[in-house]
């Protein structure tokens, strides 16, 4: 509630003497757009005719998604043996893909929750799409562990539901913790997303009803719950949003911490390390921002959203990618240091083997994608070249997939007993299933941009200078009124 005009009013006298410089604030909506422009722009995407490119992408995405359906159908009909898993590598692509997708989701929650608590206003134009990405990524992630249980019709055994065996889940197991972490994460992400959508659904309800499209007006209206923009409602709404942000922050940090416990709590060399929780969380945010860039840059270009996703937004996202990528790089180095410093021969071997063993190719792909790629974001010239940023974001996605592959597969393939060593390669069924999840994700994301507002209109308006009830900057009270 402290605004320029207010705080200048009761500022201590010393401030006038030292005359602190007014720090320039980045413009979040360029070209001095009006509130109405934002509504028309975002709603226009939904109200307009379905573009041809959308249908092309949708058909392609459905086709790709059918690979997952085919892979899973074959798996369920035959048995989990159709995957390439065999002793000693009993966790492989399924868990790699699970961690990969869950990690991608984390940037959405970071943007919607942590950046909200830190009052980073630039989050507003990307948070809706990023939260959608989170939910769809969790959907893709959930496919893998659910089908890895083998007999998927018993997947409900994961939850404490009374059954005829009278035996309960073992709550000492990190895998059971994971069930609760991931299902809570999915549920809370959906709730958070829905609460954010509420005011925007109300706008769509009224616009469709006014335009005479009763069917869609009714449908949006049903989900808008009768929202009417009342300030008495906004008061509770904002408080609820703040609390959701407050609880989503420890949630997102705990989810990937618990995912890392799946490994860290075991005794396998290369997994049994205390650095895993922070390292996994940083990696998750890194990969998630990679995916946000991959999705938002084409969206910005197609729908001409340059005024809303400005160069400043891209700079911010690139810098977070750079920071988290560097943390990940530090973790890679620290793992090696501890392996040497800990003087455990198995641990030492596991890391030498990662870098120079049979899977060295995967290790060096990981290092080049995750440690070297983000370093380009130091340069303004790179950040301003959106094509280059997009290409680099793809490298980040690839690198983070390989990180999980390196961690999971190299450690299992070379465990304590040389007699049990093996080499894992995926079967065609696994490749189909994983490839198809990109289609599943794209189908969901395409439906999202077609039927729901891609940006939170209410939140965007609230960060514009006109939204300040005390007038912006030096303009003083009530003098900065403007119309279309």
């Amino acid at each position: 509630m402290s605004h320029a005009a207010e705080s200048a009013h009761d500022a201590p006298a010393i401030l006038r003497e030292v005359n602190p410089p007014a720090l320039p604030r980045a413009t979040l909506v360029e070209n001095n757009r009006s509130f109405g422009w934002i509504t028309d722009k975002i709603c226009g995407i939904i109200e307009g005719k379905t573009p041809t490119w959308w249908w092309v992408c949708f058909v392609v995405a459905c086709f790709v998604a059918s690979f997952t359906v085919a892979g899973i159908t074959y798996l369920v009909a035959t048995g989990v043996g159709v995957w390439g898993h065999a002793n000693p590598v009993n966790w492989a692509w399924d868990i790699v893909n699970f961690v990969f997708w869950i990690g991608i989701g984390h940037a959405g929650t970071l943007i919607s929750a942590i950046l909200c608590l830190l009052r980073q206003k630039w989050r507003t134009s990307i948070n809706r799409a990023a939260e959608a990405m989170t939910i769809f990524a969790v959907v893709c992630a959930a496919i893998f562990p659910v089908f890895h249980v083998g007999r998927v019709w018993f997947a409900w055994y994961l939850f404490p539901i009374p059954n005829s065996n009278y035996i309960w889940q073992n709550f000492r197991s990190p895998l059971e913790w994971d069930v609760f972490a991931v299902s809570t994460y999915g549920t809370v992400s959906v709730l958070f997303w829905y609460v954010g959508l509420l005011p925007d659904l109300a706008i769509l309800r009224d616009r469709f009803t006014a335009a005479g499209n009763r069917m869609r007006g009714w449908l949006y209206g049903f989900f808008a719950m009768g929202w009417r923009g009342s300030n008495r409602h906004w008061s509770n709404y904002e408080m609820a949003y703040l609390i959701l942000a407050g609880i989503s922050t420890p949630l997102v940090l705990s989810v990937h911490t618990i995912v890392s416990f799946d490994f860290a709590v075991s005794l396998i060399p290369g997994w049994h390390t205390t650095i895993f929780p922070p390292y996994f969380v940083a990696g998750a945010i890194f990969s998630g921002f990679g995916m946000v860039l991959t999705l938002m840059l084409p969206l910005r270009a197609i729908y001409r959203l340059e005024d809303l996703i400005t160069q400043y937004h891209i700079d911010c996202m690139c810098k977070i990618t750079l920071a988290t990528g560097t943390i990940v790089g530090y973790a890679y180095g620290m793992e090696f240091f501890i392996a040497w410093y800990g003087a455990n021969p198995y641990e030492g071997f596991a890391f030498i083997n990662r870098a120079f063993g049979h899977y060295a190719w995967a290790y060096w792909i990981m290092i080049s994608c995750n440690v070297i790629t983000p370093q380009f974001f130091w340069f303004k010239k790179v950040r301003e070249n959106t094509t280059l940023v997009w290409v680099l974001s793809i490298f980040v996605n690839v690198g983070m997939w390989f990180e999980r592959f390196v961690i999971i597969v190299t450690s299992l393939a070379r465990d304590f007993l040389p007699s049990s060593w093996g080499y894992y390669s995926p079967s065609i069924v696994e490749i189909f299933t994983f490839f198809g999840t990109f289609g599943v994700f794209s189908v969901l994301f395409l439906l999202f941009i077609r039927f729901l507002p891609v940006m939170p209109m209410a939140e965007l308006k609230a960060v514009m200078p006109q939204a300040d009830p005390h007038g912006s900057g030096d303009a003083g009270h009530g003098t900065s009124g403007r119309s279309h």
Partner: protein
Amino acid sequence: MAAQPYGLVAVFDTAPAVYHAAETVRDAGYKCWDCITPFPIHGLDRAMGLGRSKVPRISLVGGVLGFTTGMSMIWFTNAYDYPLIVGGKPYFSPMFAFPVSYELTILFTAFATIGGMFLLNRLPMHYHPVLKSDHIVRGLDDKFLVVIEARDPKFNLAATRALLEKAGGREITELEA
């Protein structure tokens, strides 16, 4: 209109305008009235004389309930109903029960927060006189509305209209009940 109207609605063009109008209406002593804005305006709660939201109390109840649910569920399943021997570990310890209880705390808090928000806002309410108004489309888009309800003891069609006019409101119209 023969019947008593629901209230009066006035349109304002800017955030500062509605902020000052809210102060005027508050100072005039009205209780049953509201501002319709496309986004939450900072400080408008105070300008309207609203207290702090009560959502956090409901959230706290949810959180406490979630944590105790987690702890007691794990104690019941692993230590009481079917004591499970795993590696000679104790049947129950708050340590291993913590991660699940932590997640349930968050899950229950989220449901309580959102449920509390809907409850305190009396939503869903798909029918409301304000929603029937022609102004609502603009009120969620780029205009700001002030609605004073007829059930307010101070409500008087002429005097209230004059007050809204004085506050700078345009297109002052009666809302059908």
